[in-house]
């Protein structure tokens, strides 16, 4: 952390209230330190995770997204984590085809007792994304219709990458 030139990835983590979020509390109580690159957002269940949240986080500047839920069979709401798994597998496949490296999105089952696993996963993921570098999505173009457009040739130099 002392070296200012090291890339500090921004990771958004969605942790379920009942297992992984509680586990991250335990990590703190156990005085286990982990990379400060993760911003944890508590959700009631990993099944609440809309794939839009993941893509929106990436669009708004996250270099990676971590999702944490209860182990299969342990979901507080019986089957929320199975839903999360199905969505996550398809989302991961789609993001890979869209050119986003697989390591940038990760789903982990972390029980409330596994404070050490939070530490391990966060550190591991931070290191992997540091290796990959920042996520550079193409900017979403916005209109600049006020620009004068006198001749047909005038637009040719612009457009495309913006």
């Amino acid at each position, binding site marked *: 952390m002392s070296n200012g030139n090291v890339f500090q990835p921004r990771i958004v983590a969605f942790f379920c209230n009942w297992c992984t979020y509680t586990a991250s509390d335990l990590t703190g109580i156990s005085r286990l330190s982990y990379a400060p690159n993760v911003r944890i957002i508590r959700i009631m269940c990993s099944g609440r995770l809309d794939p839009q949240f993941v893509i929106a986080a990436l669009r708004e500047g996250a270099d990676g997204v971590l999702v944490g839920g209860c182990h299969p069979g342990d979901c507080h709401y019986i089957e929320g984590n199975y839903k999360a798994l199905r969505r996550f597998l398809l989302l991961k496949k789609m993001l890979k*085809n869209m050119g986003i490296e697989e390591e940038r999105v990760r789903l982990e089952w972390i029980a409330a007792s596994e404070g050490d696993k939070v530490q391990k996963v966060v550190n591991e993921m931070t290191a992997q994304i540091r290796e990959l570098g920042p996520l550079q999505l193409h900017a979403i173009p916005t209109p600049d219709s006020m620009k004068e*457009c006198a001749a047909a040739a005038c637009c040719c130099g612009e457009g495309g990458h913006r």
Partner: protein
Amino acid sequence: MSKPKVGFNWLASCGGCEEAVVDLNEGILTVVEAVDIVFWPCAMDFKKDDVEKMDDGEIDVCFVNGAIRTSEEEHVSKLLRKKSKVIVAFGSCSHTGGIPGLGNLKTREEIMDEAYLNGMSTVNPDKVYPQSEFEAPEGKLELPVFLENVRCLNQVIDVDYYLPGCPPPANLIMNAITAILEGKLPPKGSVLAPDKAMCEECERKDTKPDNMLVKELKRPHEMIADPEKCLLAQGLLCLGPVTRAGCGAVCVKGNMPCTGCMGPTSRVRDYGAKALSAIASIVDQQEEDEIEKVLATVVDPEGTFYRYSVPASLLHRRLTNV
């Protein structure tokens, strides 16, 4: 009072939207009676010059269909914005990118190579690509530049209203035109279609199970679907639950699943992610490898879920630096 001046234009599109206007049938006579069509390159002999000669804001309403892929399309869009009081993005392509928007899943170079070099029936040993400028003995020839990305209309110019659909359904077009003629337009930025899911107006709604779960997902050519039952419940990848209503579920009436041309409802920020979520959550498997097996049948998730909306999606295009 003089008649309102109306324009129609096409950009990167197939002409289906123009067909949709003709699909108004006798209704078009009422429209032609009530308005003065001042620009419609597909159907009438107007040239860009005619528009350039107009005063700013002279066109009352201009319907623009198609996405923006070339420099010419960008230029004409900006020109029409300047000359029109109201711009309506007409059809999926100008609304969210549409089929031409799938071009954002490839790079410009990949598309050029496929079209002019590697295509099955292409013979091009000298690797000749189209040029935007060419010095001929008779003088300099110009063609529009094929830009890097496809954009939907509101990424190029300010858009007032959206008429979704591929193409927009005739009744929605008629409603929009009537609203314009009567001056009863909704707030700027509105999508001129009902803000509810397509399933709501589907004839097979009652056969949709409360707890939707399927053991496998199928593609239309792999089965003959029951013509009465909910297609999603039969395992066909139907996007009705996440797609805006207004089409009257015409595809389902034809026993084909919804592909999502009407775009998202107002609550959805990224159509593809929402569609992916809806489909993945109905897979009735719990083990990772079993789920993977079912999901493997979705061979092209980005093309399936973003079929009409790659440019308007949060990602906008496939990343090209990897």
